């Protein structure tokens, strides 16, 4: 075997003597190779983040009822398409455009509308702007899909259309600009590595505004105020969804290094796994201890909450801290779900608990756990309370949570309130009962399982 290969290589060298010298001559420079490697990694990460939409489709569909399955799943594909166009035309320019004056740039970016990138990376760029765009777009789409949790099973299709336009062009880009695009929170040194606040809290706040304005689904609450459990129709979908999101999160967090360089993205992936693990374990155990039964739904949400929380802190904290952050997120999501149910906010996908509560916690966690060596590595902000940094970073984190949360909630609330006044947010009672598959699209997602005619029996 070895002999044969040696023979083959010898023959090749005789036929193509230049092969032996390929390393010399005018090959790509080290800078080009570095750029190429970065580009490749960011592209892979962008694809992973886009694939997270598969997770959202399964998560939302599995957590809701059969009669809405086709609608819930299919509308995600539509809105991902629509937000891509909107973000290309306007959103990206507001988030990352560099033409605004210095004072305006604190609040919003200007430029790069209808983004028309150079076809290859320019000299000195560490990656092509095309790939950065695709990566950022995938984040915007994730934030939007998080928001849909609050709309599930009762909003009209047209509301999805209008809200996508506003969210993708203004609401999300403004917050992304504040923290990542050189805006005023970036100047303050707010630490949100991959978007616990930017992506998750923003989406969750939109979901909260929607669910408040939409009111609970029919049958969620009884006259005496007690809640009913509206179970999702497929826990296997929901579990697969969590796995898809979990894997996609490696693109989300580790991709946010936007560089291969010294391999720091590997550390980010490492803490991400620990955070997710902590969330899943803590959530199952806490539900088991408190309710006497280990709740699968809570466990799944716990894994996601661990991921959401570690998203802000994955690059700033030591391994033990990422485990702690995940564990706390798992407990928090359980308590938060119970809390929202109690205050009569009907959140079918637990978006507010998973992305909101855990997003807040993850962002604040940097104020406690950010370690000096890691802060130096990333170069944003200062070390946290537990490393002698005092309350400074905690205050910055708190500020960014409050400001971004308030902005996202207020903006979403106003937009949805206006839509509600003009065309209405919610389908009619009858449409809600027969299901949105039929009322919005004309066909059931499970045609054999549900009868189209005979709606009179309802």
């Amino acid at each position, binding site marked *: 075997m070895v002999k044969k290969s040696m023979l083959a290589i010898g023959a090749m060298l005789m036929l193509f003597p230049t092969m032996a010298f390929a390393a010399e001559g005018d090959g790509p420079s080290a800078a080009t190779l570095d750029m190429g490697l970065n580009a490749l990694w960011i592209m892979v990460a962008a694809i992973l983040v886009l694939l997270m939409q598969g997770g959202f489709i399964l998560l939302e569909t599995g957590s809701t009822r059969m009669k809405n399955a086709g609608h819930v799943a299919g509308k995600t594909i539509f809105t991902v398409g629509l937000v891509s166009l909107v973000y290309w035309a306007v959103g990206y320019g507001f988030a990352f455009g560099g033409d605004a004056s210095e004072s305006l740039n604190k609040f919003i970016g200007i430029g790069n509308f209808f983004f028309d990138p150079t076809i290859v990376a320019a000299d000195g760029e560490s990656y092509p702007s095309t790939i950065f765009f695709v990566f950022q777009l995938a984040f915007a789409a994730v934030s939007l899909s998080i928001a849909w949790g609050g709309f599930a099973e009762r909003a009209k299709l047209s509301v999805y259309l209008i809200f996508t336009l506003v969210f993708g062009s203004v609401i999300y880009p403004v917050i992304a600009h504040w923290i990542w695009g050189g805006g005023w929170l970036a100047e303050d040194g707010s630490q949100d590595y991959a978007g616990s606040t930017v992506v998750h809290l923003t989406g969750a706040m939109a979901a909260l505004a929607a669910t408040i304005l939409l009111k609970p689904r029919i049958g969620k609450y*009884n006259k*005496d105020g*007690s*809640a*009913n*459990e509206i179970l999702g129709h497929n826990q296997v979908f929901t579990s697969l969804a969590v796995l898809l999101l979990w894997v996609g999160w490696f693109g989300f967090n580790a991709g946010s290094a936007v560089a291969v360089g010294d391999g720091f993205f590997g550390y980010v992936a490492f803490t991400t796994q620990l955070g997710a693990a902590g969330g899943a374990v803590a959530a199952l155990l806490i539900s088991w*201890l*408190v*309710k*006497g039964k280990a709740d699968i739904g809570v466990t799944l949400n716990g894994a996601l909450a661990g991921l959401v929380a570690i998203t802000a802190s994955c690059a700033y904290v030591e391994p033990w801290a990422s485990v702690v952050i995940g564990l706390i997120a798992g407990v928090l999501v359980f308590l938060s779900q119970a809390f929202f149910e109690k205050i009569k906010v009907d959140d079918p996908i637990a978006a507010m608990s998973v992305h909101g509560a855990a997003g807040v916690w993850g962002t604040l966690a940097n104020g406690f756990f950010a370690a000096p060596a890691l802060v130096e590595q990333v170069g944003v902000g200062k070390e946290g309370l537990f490393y002698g940094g005092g309350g400074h970073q905690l205050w910055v984190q708190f500020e960014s949570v409050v400001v971004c949360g308030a902005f996202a909630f207020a903006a979403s609330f106003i937009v949805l309130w206006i839509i509600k006044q003009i065309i209405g947010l919610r389908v009619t009672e009858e449409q809600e009962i027969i299901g949105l598959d039929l009322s919005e699209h004309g066909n059931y997602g499970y045609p054999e399982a549900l009868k189209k005619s005979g709606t009179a029996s309802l």
Partner: protein
Amino acid sequence: MSSLHKEKRLLDITGAGDPGSLRTIREEEQNRLGAILSSSPVIELVEDLNELHDSLILRALKLAEIEMARLGHGAPPVPYAYLLFGSGGRREQTFSSDQDSSLIYLDPQNEADALTFENYFQTLAQITVGYLVDIGYPPCEGNVIASNPDWCMSISAWERKLDSWFEEPNWENVRYLLIVADGRLVGGDEDLGARWNARFYRDFLGSPVIARRMMENTLRHKVLVGVFGQLLTERYGELAGTLDIKYGAYIPMVNVFRLMAVHAGIKETSTIGRIRELEKAEILSSEEAKEAAEAFELFLLLRLMAVTKDENGQWAGTGVIHASKLKGEWKVPLKKALKLGRKLQRQVEREMRYRFGGR
């Protein structure tokens, strides 16, 4: 209650000529007992209530015999025994318990007799069950009732049936064994009842592994208290916020002491009686027995309180109590009682595993 009143009640019952008047007596007595529920010792009250049920059932049986004679079937051709299972067997019926019963008659000597007896006793059982429905005892949902031919048969048929359950202890048969373990003679021939009872205990001692199967069948009902001592109330639906007293407190306790008692060959069927007998047999220390009896007493009280009258004035048991309606002074003893129930449940589980291995 004064013995004078008791005697008068018994006279009224034995003098009643139809189910309608028995129902009136039952309602009056239940109203009286319901009114003094929270102010009297619960064990005595439950005893009193169950004496009432027993005499009503006995009278219904007598009326059915009279009706049989009137219909031309004559007197019972051979002695028979009427057994109660479930809460009736345990002398723990509430204001709204249903009927779980069986009828056993002496073996026929030939085939002609066999047919006659079968006809007579099945008709008798049907009339009795019908009367009891009229008096306000709904039939058993699981169809464990004398009017069902599967639960109305001659003593040797019954013995064969018991043997077959012990030989083939699948889930369903073990469930039946758990039901009949609470069996108690309420009317008819005492020797027949004793013979039936002896067979059950003979079979049980002959196959001790049955005890483990019986335990496994009962573990489904967990005591509704969490590791932090919190009450595990219902979270959703119309019953949100309620505690399932029947299946989350009372039944697990019944299961534990049934198993311990049967295992020790104790034939007493009421749970309090079982606890007392277990103490006498030195299986429970006097301290344990006292705690257990106190805990069970509280469950009995709450279970009686979980019964209400519906809009038609009919007694209806939900088995649940809203946690916010629990009196403050009950919360501490209730949690203590539930924790004891949980401890006992685990203790029995451990012991069975130790004795027969895990699965």
